[in-house]
């Protein structure tokens, strides 16, 4: 116990006695953690935005004018059984015409040639995000077309395909760039701590010659690494929050809607950065000290 207290004090002393260079190390690692967490936050926000967009996506089932109540019942029943469908919205012929008028805007005169309402009634279906794959939707559409009373089934094939590839591309980018950055930062941490401890090789030698055990030598270094990582994490978290606040405020001047969908990490995730930093530095220190041979 006494020895542990001493080793802890030693770590604090060592940290303090080289405060300038330790501060540099802390800031370096903090900057690294900041980059990776900023990256994670941006990814999170892009992902949420994509989810929002694709939440508006669905299938439209156009009904024949002469559909029977029984046929309509069968179709509705099918919707109920399909767990991928999250909402069903019935659009009457009149609503459809109204919507078309709105969409056409100033070109509404195009509709003047019609004697009766040419538009069909329809069901608008919304699907779970997970089910929004081009192949899956196509299959669903084909099945719905088989029903009696269904005139046609439409969905944004092209849009869906590009949305899908955008989402996939983004995932590839996120994972590859993210892991590059992660590896890079693990490396920067290791390297910084290695260089920092390299100076102490003499000191370690002396301790060995005085009969210190491996753990006696290592513990202060590991604790120092832990402090460094922990402080880095706390600094990174604060900086990230600051930058997030400033950036959203600034961006809101250009895109006011940003405030409604930009998010920060949930409070439960706050400890991740300090603890992650501490763990990373701890492992970095462990490698940096290396094998102690007598």
């Amino acid at each position, binding site marked *: 116990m006494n*020895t542990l207290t*001493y080793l802890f004090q030693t770590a604090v*002393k060592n940290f303090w006695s080289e405060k300038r260079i330790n501060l540099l190390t802390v800031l370096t690692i903090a900057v690294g953690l900041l980059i990776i967490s900023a990256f994670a936050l941006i990814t999170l926000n892009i992902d949420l935005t994509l989810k929002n967009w694709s939440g508006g996506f669905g299938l439209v089932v156009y009904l024949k004018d002469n559909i029977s109540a029984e046929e309509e019942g069968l179709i509705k029943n099918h919707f109920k059984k399909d767990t991928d469908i999250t909402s069903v919205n019935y659009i009457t012929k009149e609503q459809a015409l109204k919507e078309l008028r709105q969409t056409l805007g100033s070109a509404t005169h195009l509709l003047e040639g019609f004697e009766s309402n040419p538009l069909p009634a329809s069901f608008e279906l919304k699907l779970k995000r997970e089910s929004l794959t081009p192949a899956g939707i196509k299959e669903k559409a084909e099945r719905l077309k088989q029903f009696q009373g269904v005139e046609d089934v439409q969905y944004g094939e092209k849009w869906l395909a590009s949305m899908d590839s955008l989402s996939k591309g983004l995932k590839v980018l996120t994972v590859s760039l993210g892991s590059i950055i992660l590896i890079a930062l693990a490396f920067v941490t290791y390297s910084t701590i290695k260089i920092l401890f390299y100076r102490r090789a003499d*000191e370690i030698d002396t301790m060995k*010659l*005085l*009969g210190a055990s*491996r753990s006696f030598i290592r513990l202060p270094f590991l604790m120092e690494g832990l402090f460094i990582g922990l402080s880095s994490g706390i600094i990174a978290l604060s900086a990230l929050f600051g930058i997030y606040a400033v950036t959203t405020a600034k961006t809101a001047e250009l895109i006011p809607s940003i405030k409604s969908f930009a998010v920060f990490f949930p409070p439960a995730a706050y400890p991740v950065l300090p603890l992650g930093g501490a763990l990373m530095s701890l492992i970095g220190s462990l490698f940096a000290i290396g094998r102690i041979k007598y």
Partner: protein
Amino acid sequence: MIQFSDVSKFYDNEAALSDITLTIEKGEHIYITGPSGAGKTTLLKLIYAAERPDKGTVSVAGQDTGKLKQGAVPFLRRTIGVVFQDFRLLPNVTVFDNIALALRIHGIDSKEIKENVNDVLASIGMKHKAHEFPRHLSGGEQQMAAIARAIVSKPNVLLADEPTGNLDPGTADTIIKLFREINLRGTTLIIATHHDALFKNTGHRVIYLKEGKIEKETKD
């Protein structure tokens, strides 16, 4: 008991020590002397297992240092106090903490450490420098701190490598008297030195090394 049997140590194919056979009894007070590069420091290093023999065996307290497991080395070293020729003080801690370190390693508690360190500092007249960092000490003061660290843990064996090289004759005398006291309490004492005034006419055993070999042995 320390025993060298036909020991050689090579650096870059040159022998720093060759075919040394030597027995040092428990409680002895012995000097190693000889010109620069004769192998004095190397001989001491073999005792505290900082070097392993390339030929022959070195045994310390019954243990063959050449065959010692890594984990056993610190335990051997904790029974040996060493005054290093280049002092080897930790630059980032005070004189007090440098000396206390030798006790920390033994897991002794802080109160006892404080007492012991202060006692040692008092006995060598260095109390006023307790809270200085090594780089703020004079050469002799650094050497005194190194001596204090070697003796504070009351080791079974005390190795001192040129312990008076930076000391004035008066202080050197004080140190030698202190060493003698320690030796009388049962500590085996091995001093490597050029400073023949330390052993001239003392009746102690002196080993003369030359080019890695034992040239002669006397009881002055």
